[in-house]
């Protein structure tokens, strides 16, 4: 295996125009409103590993996921898939085959009018992977067995399954084109806790068996801890901290990461006074100057208001914080 990372984001950004219609804008005398969903993200996912992104709702995690599979084109910066520009790689079907996505809502991610065997076979048909009907049937049966369903389930419709089972069908579909890179956009957040564990174990097992690379999006720190090699903490379209999983939990460095860790329920901390993060997440349309976290940060200084921090190495982690850089933490 080469050292080229499976996926690299170089200063990738994605802006959305959320302006009102031109006429209304003219009457109200206001300018365009640009939502900076992702605003300059650098990360790389080495082959065979899992990188997780965590953060609050609206911090741009899902947008990164969609950038990573090419559903969105970056407004600025570059997305590189296995050494090639993503848009260029996606033009070739043998490269497109290598990436797949698993979605959050198992009730919306399967076409309700299609039978399961057609849903699972769709990628194989699109890429022309199988020579005939019989081979396709055998492969669908194999895939369904692999994700813990019965081959007979192929004849059913999605509405005959529970949420967890549907997510298994989603995974079977994603695996059917023999991908190497899977983007999972909150694959467990719509499921019961007990079912979450099953799905996560299934995904881990598949990873170790097939050498898959995951970009895993979640807002659940417990889930992320179970599956990740490295974790990126996102805040308002930027990465605040990027660290190996255990090190992040053992020693969170960025003030925002610490605040998140504080919020995890923990038996050892019963009775201890918690310090909640004050305030709301600012709007990504009008983000704060300098460090986006400074209005809520206990360590904020004048420099934080003026200058945007870049990701810099701190120990085995990468942290974007002036306070950490200056040793004020």
């Amino acid at each position, binding site marked *: 295996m080469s050292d080229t990372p499976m996926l690299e984001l170089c200063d990738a950004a994605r802006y959305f125009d959320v302006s009102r219609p031109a006429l209304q804008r003219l009457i109200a005398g206001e300018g365009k409103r640009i939502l900076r969903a992702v605003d300059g993200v650098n990360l790389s996912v080495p082959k065979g590993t899992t990188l997780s992104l965590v953060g609050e709702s609206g911090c741009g995690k899902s947008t990164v996921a*969609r950038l990573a*599979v*090419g*559903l969105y084109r970056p407004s600025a910066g570059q997305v590189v898939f296995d050494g090639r520009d993503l848009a260029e790689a*996606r033009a070739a*079907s043998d490269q*497109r085959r290598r*990436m*797949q*996505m698993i*979605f*959050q*809502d198992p009730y*919306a*991610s*399967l*076409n*309700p*009018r*299609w039978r399961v065997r057609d*849903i699972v076979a*769709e*990628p194989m048909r*699109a*890429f022309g992977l199988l020579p005939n009907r019989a081979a396709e049937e055998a492969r669908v049966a194999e895939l369904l067995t692999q994700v813990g369903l019965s081959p007979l389930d192929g004849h059913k*419709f999605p*509405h005959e399954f529970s949420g967890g089972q549907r997510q298994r069908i*989603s995974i079977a*579909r994603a695996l059917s*084109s023999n991908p190497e890179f899977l983007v999972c956009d909150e694959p467990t957040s719509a499921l019961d806790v007990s079912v979450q564990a099953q799905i996560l174990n299934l995904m881990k097992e598949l990873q170790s068996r097939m050498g898959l690379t995951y970009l895993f999006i979640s807002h659940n720190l417990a889930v992320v801890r179970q599956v990740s090699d490295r974790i990126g903490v996102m805040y308002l379209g930027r990465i605040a901290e990027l660290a190996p999983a255990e090190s992040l939990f053992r020693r969170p460095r960025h003030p925002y990461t610490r605040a998140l860790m504080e919020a995890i329920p923990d038996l050892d901390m019963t009775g201890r006074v918690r310090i909640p993060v004050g305030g709301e997440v600012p709007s990504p349309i009008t983000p704060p100057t300098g460090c986006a976290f400074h209005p809520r940060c206990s360590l904020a200084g004048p420099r934080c208001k003026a200058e945007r921090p870049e990701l810099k190495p701190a120990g085995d982690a990468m942290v974007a914080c002036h306070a950490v850089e200056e040793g004020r933490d």
Partner: protein
Amino acid sequence: MAATLRRFFDSDLWWSFTRSPVTMLSAVVALICILGALFAPWLAPHNPFDLASLNLLDAFKPPSWTEEGEAQYLLGTDDQGRDVLSAIMYGARVSLLVGLSATIFATTLGVTLGLLAGYLGGKLDALLMRICDVQLTFPSILVALLIDGVVRAALPREVHDQIALFVVIFAIGISEWPKFARTVRGSTMVERNKEYVQAARVIGVSPPRIMLSHVLPNVMGPVLVIATLNLGLAILSEATLSFLGVGVPATQPSLGTLIRIGNDFLFSGEWWITIFPGITLIAMVLSVNLLGDWLRDALNPKLR
């Protein structure tokens, strides 16, 4: 074939059909209307177009169950001595032909434009929807009248008579497509953002394929219902146009033409000439609409 039939009789559709007496009754009525119209040349007791078989002495015979009625004219005769039942059967043929063709035309046009507008969005969407808006401000019968009038004025009479049937079909179809386009566009905009469509986009399925194989089946439910309801409406529109004297040519009388002709004799007591075509029209439209209603419930997988 036998296997397909068995599958049909095992299906949820058939099951829900057998549970609904109203639906079964409408199906029977619709079937009688359609079969009667389709096989009119073989089923009708007389041929209203065969002038040699007409006898003016038989004019204005009332229905056969009344005192002066004759057994061979079940629903009576008109002023020329034509059998009303036979005229209805031949007339329903024209009505059904125009109604079905116009509905198919409107559905195809509306669904195609609605899918494109909803899926592609942007300027195309804006343009198509403004056209819809403009057209929806007019009653659809007015649009049909306008088109019919323009064609009538633009073409010489002989040419017009030859293509009159197509003009009516086109006029009614054009006047109904915005309903389909609007419905399909709305559902398409919902479906295109669903994750199963995005999953197909990740694989790289082309937009036309996504529209046809993913979006279309999921927006067809309401379309099917509107189409059946619209079939009734189209038959009515045609009848209205023919009643006003601008619809199908006089050489091919439809139910609307029969009602108009019979209407002249209503005050002189010959009620059967206009009432029976009217009843046929109502029975046909109502049964088709009730079938459409049932189809909506039966085809919705979430209601099963």
